C-alpha cells in the first residue's frame, strides 16, 4: 500500500508537471511593452515553484516508500541535523528564493505602476457598468466633457451621461462599444465604474485592473501587435458577469483614423 502510494505521488507529480513544461495551456502571447518582465518573473517563479513541488513530492513519496512496513527489529532513526537543519533549510532555501522573487517582482511591478504615462499618451476613458464596457475618446479638442450621472441612460445610448447640448467639451467626444488603439502608441486608460465593482483584464496586454466605484483609476500601456483581442471582466459584478466583455482592436495608425471616422459617424 505504501509503495503504491509513493508511486502514485511520483506519477501525479510528473503528470501535473507535463502540461506546464509543454505549455499546453499557457499564457497568451504578450503584446505589450511592459509584459516581458512579468513573463520572465512568471517563468522564474514557475521554475522555482515547480522544482519545490517536484522535489518535495518526490521526497515525500520516497520516505513513505522507505519507512513504512517496518520489520520487527527496526529501530526508529532521527533525521541527521534534526529540526535545526530544517529551519535553516526553510530560511535559506525558501527565504532567499522568496527574497529574490520579491525583489525581482518589485521591478516588474514598478515597471507597470511607478512610471507615469507619457505626456503624449493617447487618452482613452473606459466606463464599466452592468454588464458592458463603454469607451470614450476625447475627440479633436483633446478633453473629455463632464459626466452627469443623472443623465446616464442606456436606453438613449447616452452611456456616459453627456450633455452635448450644453457642454462644449462633450460635443466631439466619441463613445464606442469597442476599444481601438493605435499600435505602438502609449495609451493612458482612465477608468471608472458607474455602478458596482468590475475589472479590466486583457491577458495579451498583461493588464488587469479593478474598477472601484467612487474612485478614478488609470493604467497605461502600449500595444505592439496589430490584432483583435478580448477585454473581459474579472470582478464578480452580477448575473451577466460571464458575458461582460468588449473587443480591443490594435490598429495601424491609418486604420485607427478610419475606425475613428466610422465611430464618429455612428454617434
Amino acid at each position, binding site marked *: 500500500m505504501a509503495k503504491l502510494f509513493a508511486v502514485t505521488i511520483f506519477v501525479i507529480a510528473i503528470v501535473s508537471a507535463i502540461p506546464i513544461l509543454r505549455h499546453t495551456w499557457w499564457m497568451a502571447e504578450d503584446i505589450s511593452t511592459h509584459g516581458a518582465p512579468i513573463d520572465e518573473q512568471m517563468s522564474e517563479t514557475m521554475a522555482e515553484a515547480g522544482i519545490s513541488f517536484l522535489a518535495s513530492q518526490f521526497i515525500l513519496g520516497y520516505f513513505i516508500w522507505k519507512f513504512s512496513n517496518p520489520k520487527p527489529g527496526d529501530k526508529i532513526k532521527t533525521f541527521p541535523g534534526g529540526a535545526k537543519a530544517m529551519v535553516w533549510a526553510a530560511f535559506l532555501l525558501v527565504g532567499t528564493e522568496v527574497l529574490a522573487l520579491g525583489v525581482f517582482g518589485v521591478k516588474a511591478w514598478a515597471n507597470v505602476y511607478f512610471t507615469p504615462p507619457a505626456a503624449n499618451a493617447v487618452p482613452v476613458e473606459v466606463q464599466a457598468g452592468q454588464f458592458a464596457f463603454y469607451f470614450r475618446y476625447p475627440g479633436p479638442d483633446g478633453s473629455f466633457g463632464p459626466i452627469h450621472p443623472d443623465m446616464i441612460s442606456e436606453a438613449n445610448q447616452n452611456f456616459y451621461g453627456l450633455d452635448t447640448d450644453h457642454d462644449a467639451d462633450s460635443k466631439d467626444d466619441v463613445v464606442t462599444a469597442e476599444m481601438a488603439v493605435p499600435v505602438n502608441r502609449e495609451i493612458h486608460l482612465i477608468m471608472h465604474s458607474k455602478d458596482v465593482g468590475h475589472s479590466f483584464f486583457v491577458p495579451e496586454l498583461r493588464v488587469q485592473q479593478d474598477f472601484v466605484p467612487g474612485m478614478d483609476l488609470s493604467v497605461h500601456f502600449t500595444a505592439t501587435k496589430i490584432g483583435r483581442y478580448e477585454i473581459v471582466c474579472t470582478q464578480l459584478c*452580477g448575473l451577466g458577469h460571464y458575458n461582460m466583455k468588449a473587443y480591443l482592436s490594435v490598429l495601424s495608425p491609418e486604420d485607427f483614423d478610419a475606425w475613428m471616422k466610422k465611430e464618429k459617424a455612428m454617434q
Partner: protein
Amino acid sequence: MHDTAHAHAGQHAAPTSFIRKHVFSLDHKVIGKQYYGLALAAVLIGMFLSWLMRLHLGWTNLAIPGLHLLTKNGAPGDVMTPEFYLQLMTMHATIMVFFVLTTAPFAAFGNYFLPIQVGAEDMPFPHFNMMSFWVTFVAFLVLMSSFFVSDGPTLGGWTQYAPLSAVGQVGGPGEGAGVVLWALSIAIFCVGQLLGSLNFITTTLDMRTRGMSLWRLPLSAWGWFITSVMGLTAFAVLMPACILLILDHVAGTSFFVPANTVMNDQMQPHSGGSTLLWQHLFWFFGHPEVYIAIVPGMGIVSHVLVTNMRKPMLSHRVLVYAMGALAVLSYMVYGHHMFVSGMNPVSSLVFSFPTLVITIPSTIVVLIWMGSLYGAKLRINSASLFALGFISMFIAGGVSGFFLAQPSIDIMLHATYFVVGHFHLVMGVAAMFGIFAGTYFWFPKMYGRMMNETLGKIHFWCSFVGAYAIFMPFHYLGLAGNVRRYQAFAPEYMQPLIPLHKFITIAALFTGAAQLVFVYNLFVSRYKGEPASDNPWQATSLEWSTPTTPPPHNNFGDTLPVVYHDPFQYGVESSTGDYVMQTSPEKASAHDES
C-alpha cells in the same frame, strides 16, 4: 463563599433526559458531535451544489432533470440560469468555508478532544459552549432559508464585494433579501464562533490538569488553541462589517455604496460610501479565516502522524512556533487579495513581502513533517494515509502561493481559476483531508467502534487521485486566462478550454461519489463496526486514557489524570511496548523535551 468552587468550573451533573443529553447538551463531547453532524450535513449540501455547478460548466445548456424544484426562477426548463449558477456558487463557498472548514476541524474535533487532551472534565463555560453550537445552527438555517425567499440566495460570491452586495435588489436576483439573510447568517455565525473561541482559549489556559504544562499539549490541542486566538480576532472584525452591510440594505445608510451609482439607468439613493472599506474589513477577517481552516488540520495531521510514525516529530516546539507564526503573519498579508483593487501600488508591495515571508513557516511545517518521516516506522492506515495526503496537497496548494504573492504575476492570475485551484487545494482539500484523518483516527474513541479500513482506503485512493484530477487542471485554466465565477465561457479565447472543464466535471462527479463511501462507512461503522479498545492506536495523549470508550460524561471518571510526559513518547522501550502514555509515571526515554 468564594474561591473554593472554581476548580469545578466546567463540571456539571450527567444529564438524564433525552433533550439535555442529545439536543441541548452541555457536554462538550455531545456538542462536538453535533458540530460534526452539522458539518457533515453542510458538506453534503455544498458538494451537491458543486456537482450542479460543474455539470453546468461542462455542458452549459444541459437540462438537469428536477433542477427547477430547487429554485423558483433559476432553472426554467431545468436549464440553469446565469444568476442561479452564481447563487449556487455563493452558497457552495459560504457553506464550505464557514459551516464545514471552520466547524469540522476546529469546532467539532476541538470541542470533543481539546478538553480531554488537556485533562479537563469539560469546557469552563458549558452554557456558552451549548449556545455556540445552537447559534451556529441557527446561522446555518438562516443561510439555507435564503433558498426560499422570492429571488433566491445572494449571487455576490462569498467575498460579497460591495457595492454589489449593498445596492439591493436592483443589483440582481438575490441581492435584496438574499444578501441580508447571508449577512445576518454570517453575523450570527461570528457570535457562535466567538463563544467557541472563548471556551477554547480558557480551556487551554485554565483547565489543564496536573502536570499538563503548555508544552505537554499534543499538537492537535496547539492547533485548536492557535486557531481559537485567530478566530477571536477575525470573527470580531467580520461581525461589524456584516452589521454595516445589513444597515446599508435595510436602513439606507451609505457605508459601502458611493455616490453617483447608476444601476439599470436609475440613480441610487446613496452617497459617499467606500467600497474598499468592505474589502479591507472582509479580508482582515478573510485571510486569517484561511488559516482558521488549515491550522487545526495541521494540528490533527501532526497528531495522527506522530502516532502512526511511532516516533516524535523532529521538534514539537518548532512546529508550534511555526503554526503560531502563521497565525501572526496571517493578519499582515490580507492585502494580497487586493493587488488589483486600486490600492496604492506601494501598499501592494508592502503586503507582498509578508505574504512571501509566510511561506517560510509553512515550509518549516512541511520540512519538519518530512524530516520526521525519515527513519519512522510508518503505519499505513486510513488515518495516516489521509494525513500523508494532507502533506502532499498542502505542498501542491502551497507552491502556487508563490505566484499569487507577487503583485506583478498576480496581474495575470488574479481572479482566474489559478486562484480557485490554489485555495481549493490548500484550504479545501487539505483541510478536508485533515478532517478525514481526524475522523478515521478518533472515530473509535467517539463511538467505541472502529471504522472499516477497506472502505477507508477506497475512500482515500479515490479522493487523493480525484482531488488532483480536479484541482491541478484549475491551475492550467488559470494560466490560460480562464476567469473564475463565469457561468459560461463567453469570451472566445476561453472556448478551447471547455474540454478541460468537461474533464474536471467528470473527475468531480467521480470524486464526489467516492465521498459517499465515507458517509456510508461512517454510518455503518457507527452501528456495526468492530468494537474498539480504549487505545487502539497505542497512542499517548490523554484522550486514549479515559476509563471507558467513549469517555464517560465527565471524561475521566472520579479522578482527573496526572500528566508525567509530553505527548510524543514513541519509539521508546517501555512496559507497554514502544510508547509511554502521558498518564503513565514510567520513565522511559531521553527525548522528553518539556
